[in-house]
């Protein structure tokens, strides 16, 4: 077996094998170093896979060498490789940048446990992206969620605890719903492999259980993906998690659930349930539009910086779903591209927040007064990422919104409404970003008598600053030269839609 054929397995095995070892690394900093190294290695593997996929390869891997419906298969196509890039990239950058920030949040003795959980979250999320087996997706979903609860619970504020509890309850309900759906499909087809399911569902005559299964799987994954109105766990979990964790999870956590949802829906249901595409659109399009409007409006009145950005995430999930619910190549391309671009923008924003938090007294907007003058470089990166979030031309966010508008315009009157919603959402984004900028630049230079001496310039640590700027510049780079992600997204969309014929 050549190394390149083993890549899909290595993608998961590397973090999985490192996680138990990290628990044993007691000396200061070694756990972080090992975790970062494993994460960087995973990122390199993901890059290699993405390069292979772009040159036309697909990766299939039979675990234990057992053929597909009997053993568990891994299959990585364009969509999967894009998600793998997001997951491993976000993890690596967040780890590299946020060491200081994590040291501040988590005591030294607990760090090995924390970093092991981080690696498990990474392994779980990559495992979901790589798997081609419905039940295996469930197992890795549980690894990633359990590890996700752990790292979110590392937040120093006591309010992190109820937030994690809610996250745990909602996450478990979502996973169990998914499990029920998979069980019903297994009952009607006798297989767990996604491709095999698709083939065998065609012969099933009684489709009622399959319909119920489609409902359960969609709702379960929508819970995990925080699709409006099932997003209630997300804002608090993101707000009270350690900043590095927020940067990691905001960039890729919900995207992976969306990925499973789309894959399941297009691979298994669309081709086999009559008029499923119309039901899919009818169900998701209004939710997507409402999600964009309501979540953006809530963000407008939010006073905590991280909560504000979390609600903005809920709105962005709406954009992605909007693209997907059109069930066209352009729509799906736009949706998938927006996953990538939003991950870049939100990742950059939360990295900048991690930097700001090291200097600011708190993350309420009123406590941020004058922070832009104290840390101009950190805040500069924040603004660039925020521009990308809004979708200003020249940034990555613009590209995906442009594709999205093009895709919706193909749909007549409904398309006009959708475009209006997109524009309204973007305007709301301008407004809430402006509130942050206003507070940070022109707000009262928050009188801080308690801390006394404040040096006029207190930038974030150099490494964090460099990483934040790297992500911010990536936003610009992919705004000017979007070919690679667009190509991957288009390939992914075509793969998804190929099952519709």
């Amino acid at each position: 077996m050549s190394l390149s054929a083993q890549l899909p397995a290595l993608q998961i095995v590397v973090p999985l094998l490192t996680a138990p070892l990290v628990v044993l690394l007691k000396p200061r900093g070694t756990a972080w170093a090992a975790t970062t190294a494993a994460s960087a290695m995973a990122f390199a593997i993901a890059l290699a896979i993405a390069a292979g996929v772009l040159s036309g390869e697909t990766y299939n891997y039979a675990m234990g060498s057992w053929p597909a419906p009997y053993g568990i298969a891994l299959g990585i196509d364009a969509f999967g490789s894009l998600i793998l890039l997001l997951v491993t990239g976000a993890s690596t950058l967040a780890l590299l940048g946020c060491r200081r920030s994590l040291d501040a949040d988590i005591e030294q003795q607990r760090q090995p446990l924390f970093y092991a959980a981080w690696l498990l979250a990474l392994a779980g999320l990559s495992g979901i992206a790589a798997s081609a087996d419905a039940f295996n997706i469930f197992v890795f979903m549980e690894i990633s969620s359990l590890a996700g609860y752990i790292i979110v619970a590392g937040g120093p504020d006591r309010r992190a605890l109820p937030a994690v509890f809610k996250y745990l309850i909602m996450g478990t309900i979502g996973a169990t719903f998914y499990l029920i759906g998979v069980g019903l499909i297994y009952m009607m087809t006798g297989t767990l492999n996604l491709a095999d399911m698709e083939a065998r569902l065609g012969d099933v005559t009684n489709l009622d259980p399959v319909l119920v299964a489609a409902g359960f799987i969609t709702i379960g994954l929508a819970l995990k993906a925080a699709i409006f109105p099932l997003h209630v766990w997300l804002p608090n979990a993101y707000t009270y998690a350690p900043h590095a964790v927020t940067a990691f999870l905001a960039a890729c956590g919900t995207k992976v659930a969306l990925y499973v949802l789309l894959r399941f829906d297009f691979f298994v249901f669309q081709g086999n349930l009559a008029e499923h595409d119309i039901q899919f659109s009818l169900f998701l399009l209004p939710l997507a539009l409402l999600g964009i409007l309501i979540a953006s409006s809530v963000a407008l009145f939010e006073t905590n910086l991280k909560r504000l950005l979390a609600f903005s995430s809920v709105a962005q999930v709406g954009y992605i779903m909007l693209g997907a619910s059109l069930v066209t190549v352009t729509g799906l391309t736009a949706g998938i591209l927006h996953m990538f671009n939003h991950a870049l923008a939100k990742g950059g924003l939360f990295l900048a927040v991690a930097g700001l938090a090291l200097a600011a007294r708190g993350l309420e907007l009123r406590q941020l007064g004058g922070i832009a003058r104290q840390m101009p470089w950190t805040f500069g990166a924040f603004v660039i990422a925020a521009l990308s979030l809004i979708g200003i031309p020249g940034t990555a966010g613009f590209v995906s919104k442009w594709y999205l508008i093009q895709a919706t315009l193909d749909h007549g009157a409904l398309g006009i409404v959708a475009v209006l919603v997109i524009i309204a959402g973007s305007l709301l984004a301008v407004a809430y970003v402006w509130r942050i900028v206003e507070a940070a630049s022109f707000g009262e230079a928050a009188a801080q008598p308690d801390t006394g001496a404040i040096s006029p310039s207190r930038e974030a640590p150099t490494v964090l600053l460099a990483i934040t700027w790297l992500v911010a510049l990536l936003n610009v780079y992919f705004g000017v030269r979007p070919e690679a992600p667009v190509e991957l997204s288009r390939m992914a969309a075509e793969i998804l839609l190929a099952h519709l014929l």
Partner: protein
Amino acid sequence: MIEVVFGVFLLTLLVITAVAVVRTENLFVAVMLMSIFSLLMAANFFILDAADVALTEAAIGAGITTVIFLGALALTAQREKRSPNGRFATLGVISVLAALMIWATFDKPRLGDPDAPVHQHVAPWYLEQTPELMGIPNVVTAVLGSFRGYDTLGEVFVVFAACIGVLFVLSAGQGLDRGLFAPDPESEGLRHHLIPKVVGRLLVPFIVLFGLYVQFHGEYGPGGGFQAGAIIATGVILYALLEGEASALNALPRSVLLGMVVGGALLYTGVGVAGMLLGGNFLDYSVLMSDPVIGQQVGIVLIEAGVGITVCGSLLSIFHAFAAREAR
């Protein structure tokens, strides 16, 4: 026929128990009822010809889960405050959901229908090929250990994650070396109670012996790493109850437990990687030995050992994390 009637009887009891768990306001009672619920569930699984699952549910669902719940109850509250009434909206929505699911059942294959799709595809292949490819009688172990060994690997890491999660969450603010790691030296368990002490001391070795039997007999009968890990953990927990936390921790210190958790997970992954290094795919045991059948058997024994060690270590670590914490 008699099986069906018995099944209906047990299932009805199950529903009644579930309602009682939800309705009672005494949390202690609710937890004990939950244990009964799990036991009934295990009996049901046994009637449905799932011996392995029944053993697991009895050991983990009725045993370990109850102990963890009780440990948490001792640290929190015994009674639930009365929930406000007027949750009829929730009740309504959920009733509709249940009705929908019952409606969907009428197109499902009936219980025990040999023509059901699940019995036509994939499963017959396992039943046919297992004796040839692995030479072991218990097909569940074969599927668990080899055909779907990757799932089981994932599961081991779920347990691992739960263990580090509980340790991480409960070590907050106290530090790993103080608080969490220092059991109350005053806790003497039931040492001064003659009857439990004598009977308990008599039983502990047999429980551990039975656990080992379940571990190594898993290829031939119901059993395997999960069940064995849980049973051995129960034995040690019984010891801790009898002799007090401190002496249980003297016998099996936390570092040893953590080592077990880590070692088991590493053993499992290591077997998988060995398959890779020897030229097969990940978790391919056939390449471990010159004879693929023997290779499969060796692989399954090794990974089952890994599973057992991790599960046992994790469950005990979780138990100690709850039991040694002082109520504040």
